[in-house]
């Protein structure tokens, strides 16, 4: 069984350099790049208009960003090391009027922070550190205290994921390590059998039943979160896998690679159902758009990809397939 996806729009002039990360909100998509400003484009109309430019707070560029499900809280991580928290002040009607709340104090989290991920409820922020630490901060509490800090085997944390209300955190590391932590108990839940080579992305399925991890091995490993066992292996990418994302129902996994190829995998059929890639330029980030948006506007589910091509491309499932 294969599925058909069409490129419905490409935004070419949002950023002057590589786009490193995307974060969808209910009404649009945030993007960050080697430039100092985060950009926001609406996804509620078919031409995806640019509606907001963040202030130039990240002098060295931005490589990670993450948003709460409602889009009110945004966290961005700059190349100079800074972690910034942005919020739409309560009571504001606009859905694109983020204000810089402050800079996260990352002391005690080991080394410097690289990847960050925010729980869907916007309360817990997970981050990986250069020395292998994986930490969690509570953004609801005054002063954004560090509430969890786990130590792994001293290997640079390249990627991180957190479940809806912060119950679990997963991390991927330079040495191929993949870990799942239980935040309620405050301890390591599973040290998964890694892929030997650098892990570049980890992603939980929406109900947190599965964890996907991938990187330089070109293979995508899918783990059962409850047991930590590897239950599926997807092979087919011919280059480093840079980014992973489950769709809203958990039926499909989207992956993007260094050679510009993206693939969609059916969890049920354990197979690749679509492959795209017009350029050989690295896809730094791939993200499904929230289903509600897609439903409101179109019949098929949508996703966005971005990378070295400096553009954001939107794909939609072709009707009738």
């Amino acid at each position, binding site marked *: 069984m294969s599925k058909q996806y069409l490129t419905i729009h490409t935004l070419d002039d949002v950023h*002057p*350099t*590589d786009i*490193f990360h995307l974060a969808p909100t209910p009404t649009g998509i945030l993007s960050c790049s*080697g*430039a*100092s400003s985060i950009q926001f484009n609406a996804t509620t109309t078919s031409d995806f208009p640019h509606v907001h430019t963040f202030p*130039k707070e990240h*002098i*060295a*560029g931005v*490589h990670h960003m993450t948003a709460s499900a409602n889009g009110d809280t945004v966290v961005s991580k700059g*190349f*100079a*090391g800074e972690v910034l928290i942005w919020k739409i002040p309560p009571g504001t009607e606009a859905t694109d009027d983020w204000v810089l709340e402050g800079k996260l104090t990352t002391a005690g989290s080991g*080394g*410097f922070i690289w990847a960050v991920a925010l729980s869907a409820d916007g309360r817990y922020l997970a981050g990986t550190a*250069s020395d292998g630490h994986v930490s969690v901060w509570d953004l609801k509490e005054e002063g954004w205290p560090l509430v969890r800090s786990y130590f792994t085997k001293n290997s*640079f944390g*390249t990627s991180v994921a957190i479940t809806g209300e912060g119950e679990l955190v997963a991390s991927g590391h*330079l040495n191929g390590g993949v870990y799942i932590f239980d935040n309620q108990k405050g301890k390591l839940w599973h040290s998964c059998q890694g892929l030997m080579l*650098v892990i570049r992305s980890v992603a939980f399925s929406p109900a947190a039943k599965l964890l996907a991890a991938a990187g*330089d*091995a*070109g293979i995508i490993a899918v783990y059962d979160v409850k047991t930590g066992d590897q239950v599926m292996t997807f092979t087919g990418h*011919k*280059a*480093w896998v840079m980014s992973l994302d489950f769709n809203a129902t958990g039926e499909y996994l989207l992956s993007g690679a*260094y*050679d510009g190829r993206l693939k969609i995998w059916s969890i049920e059929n354990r197979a690749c159902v679509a492959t795209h890639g017009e350029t*050989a330029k*690295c896809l*730094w980030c791939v993200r499904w758009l929230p289903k509600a948006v897609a439903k409101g506007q179109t019949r098929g589910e949508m996703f966005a990809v971005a990378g070295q091509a400096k553009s954001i491309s939107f794909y939609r499932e072709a009707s009738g397939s």
Partner: protein
Amino acid sequence: MSADLSLRLSNYAAPTNEANIPVAETEDSGSRPKAPPRRDSQYVLSRIEYIFESQVDALLAENKPLSVTLQIRRAVKPSGTQEDGHSKVKAIAPRFRKFEFPGKSEQEAWRYSVILRVLEIIHEALTEDMIFTKREIFYRDPALFNQQLVVDRTVDDLAFTFGVPRQLLNVTATAKGLAAGAFTIHRQDKSSVKGWLDREGTLISPIGENDTVEMPDVEWILVIEKEATFHSLAVSPFWETIKSRGIILTAKGYPDLSTRAFLRFLSSHAPHVPILGLADFDPDGIEIFSVYKHGSMALPHENAALKVPSLHYLGIDSAILSEQGNARQEQGLLQLSLRDRRRAMAMLRRAPFVEGGKEPGLRRELQVMLMLGVKAEIQVLEARDGGLVRWLKEALKGACSQNG
């Protein structure tokens, strides 16, 4: 140094021998033993600054002469033989010599001036993070120093006085830079240096005002980060091309002033010849390239005369990662160390790598390096079909056609 000649001699004694006498309980140490100072460049700087301050104090105090005391090296002679047959080295009491200004003779005043001038240059080298050769120091003030030997001896005496190796003064013995290829330099003294004669390369010594260069056949100039790459090209079959149509040059890492001046000399002589840089894909490689092109961020006053803005980055860069369309098979990639990461993070915050700066392409390379966590040395090309030479031929062809 122009000092008030009316200053009279007195018994002023400069602090002298902390370097060589074990630190005993000094007057201010009370019951706590003082940790011996760490012998790093900071230590040398503070010693030099102390000497400068003493001079100022002496100038301010009416009756104090200017003076500086050096510890003079003595040849160590074996004295007698121990029972086990090993020659025994007699412990020699350090010998100190104080030089005053104006001093007892013209000679002493001159020695004092030489020492202060050398200290001033070393101080500059240390604060600006530059490496000077002894030759470069001589050319700073040939009228004062009179001959090279004077500089050599003073530098070595200072290193000995501070109890540090000469490298800690940021002074090297000889020229660092090497050049080879289709050029001839005609020196003012009628001697000439022919770049094609020696595959090993010619040491780059300072270019005099009236020196000229002849390079009619040169089609490109290649600035190479590392000496090893320079030599591997010189011994390869590519040497035939280099000696007839190109120039290769290296400063063995971060460039000294002579090498930068030489490149600038070549570029102003033949502005139409493309100048290309070959460095590792790592933060140091990019920074070294940037020093040749834009100058050292620490030495803006020297940069105007030394920078080579037409220098073009040939590689290697992140493009080598995907050349074969299969990043998985890339051999020879190294993990970025934490030091590399911190360095790249810091570089992204300043010129010429800042947003809107002069090197947007290299800004991207630094960001990609951090994103991927990998670096690669030039040698990575050797593992490929045709090796470094084939890659270089292609790259030169591309770069020269762009320029032409």
